């Protein structure tokens, strides 16, 4: 405890001496951490942030549905389902490889062009996020499903449970535990990536920050927006750490038994 306090104080002193107590620090503070600009930017950034949250909230639902569907299609057995498996595999390969920003451009600018209609930016954002993240999440779900021992399926089928009943009652509940930590990591990335919808012209947190930044010639609004995203991510990050630690504890407890 004392050592921890001592090292923290020492570290703070070093930071003060090498970073804050330097001639450039005032300029840094003025450009990135200007309280007045921050206060001025906050309402606009906050309003925009609500749009990011909207896209995030909708995407969580659509990604969950699409990813589950793709994962189940990829795990179907039997030669009849070969084309379905290939299609699902092709999709996950393609969209895990595609840079998200390209998907955003193609969906955000391409889709309204071919349909020749105005599509709300939130909808475009949700489509782009769903296309990209469903590919990642589908792989996590598939890995989770395949990590459930085949003997579990066998036991369920032996009881007379059908394919879907087996999946729902036996395989998915067990797969869910295995895939929760990686799913939460994908969720954290998604929380950040919804910030990219600003390039589609959405007046989100980052676009709001940009408008204030260009008026004030100051970068503090970006920092404000960044802090909002960090505050959004921290609960999920802590939850993931806690859950992973708990899983590990349980497994170790199981090993001792």
């Amino acid at each position, binding site marked *: 405890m004392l050592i921890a306090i001592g090292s923290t104080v020492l570290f703070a002193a070093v930071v003060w001496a090498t970073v804050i107590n330097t001639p450039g620090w005032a300029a840094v503070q003025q450009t990135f951490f200007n309280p007045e600009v921050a206060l001025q930017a906050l309402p606009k950034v906050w309003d925009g942030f609500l749009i990011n949250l909207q896209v995030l909230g909708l995407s969580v639902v659509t990604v969950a549905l699409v990813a589950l569907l793709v994962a189940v299609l990829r795990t179907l057995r039997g030669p009849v389902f070969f084309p379905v498996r290939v299609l699902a595999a092709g999709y996950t390969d393609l969209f895990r490889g595609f840079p998200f920003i390209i998907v955003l451009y193609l969906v955000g600018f391409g889709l309204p062009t071919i349909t020749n209609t105005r599509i709300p930016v939130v909808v475009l954002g949700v489509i782009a996020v769903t296309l990209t993240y469903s590919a990642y999440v589908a792989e996590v779900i598939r890995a989770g499903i395949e990590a459930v021992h085949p*003997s*579990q399926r*066998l*036991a369920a089928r*032996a*009881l*007379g*449970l059908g394919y879907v009943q087996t999946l729902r009652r036996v395989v998915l509940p*067990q797969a869910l535990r295995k895939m929760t930590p990686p799913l939460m990591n994908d969720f954290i990335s998604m929380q950040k990536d919804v910030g990219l919808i600003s390039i589609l012209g959405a007046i989100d947190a980052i676009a709001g920050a940009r408008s204030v930044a260009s008026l004030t010639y100051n970068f503090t609004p970006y920092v404000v927006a960044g802090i909002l995203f960090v505050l959004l991510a921290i609960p999920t990050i802590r939850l993931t750490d806690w859950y992973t630690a708990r899983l590990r504890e349980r497994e170790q407890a199981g090993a001792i038994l």
Partner: protein
Amino acid sequence: MTATASAPLLHATGLWKSFGDREVLRGIDLDLAPHEVVALIGASGSGKSTLLRCLGLLEPIDDGQIFLGDTDISDPRVDANGVRARLGAVFQSYNLFPHLSVLDNVTLASRVVHGMPRREAEERAHTLLARIGLADKAKEHPDRLSGGQQQRAAIVRAIATDPEILLLDEITSALDPELVGEVLELVRELVDDGATILMATHEMAFARDVADRVVFLDDGVIVEQGTPAQLFATPTHARTRAFLARFTA
């Protein structure tokens, strides 16, 4: 109905099964009469487990026919889930569902497959669990139970839906020796209750004790079968004698 009183409950003819190039079952004919207890013996890899799985529609057969009562259950148009729901299977490694309590393990099929109301299913399950002395473990998850307790719970799960036939696949092979007795005791009780049982086993003494008929399987074919007295005392085939010699040595 063409069935008579002596008609077999299960009737399999000419079963063939391969995994890749390996022929595991090579023309098996097997009948099981109501209330009959049949023990399948044979070395590991002789096809005992595969035969049980094929008969339980847990593994597709390459050729042959299987009748359950009057129904050809090997017909691809048959409702396989419906057939499996009429059979009970217990496996070597228990295969209890780790995410469900013992009670939910036992009631799952009743509720989900047979549409029994939860209350009724749980009442039945409690009665069965009390019978095997696991009433106080009903709310526990399987990993809190000993191997013997888990396997007994798995047996109760299999009989909770009153299956017409019980398929037992080396159910004591994964257990510590001191836990084998309690599981065999439960099987003996089921035999006394008149259950129809087909079991693959390495417990020769137990097979001799409870089986009406012992079937010796070697390399995917039935080499010899008969009453325990016949088969264990006066085996006619050299392969049977060689196999049994390893157990008495």
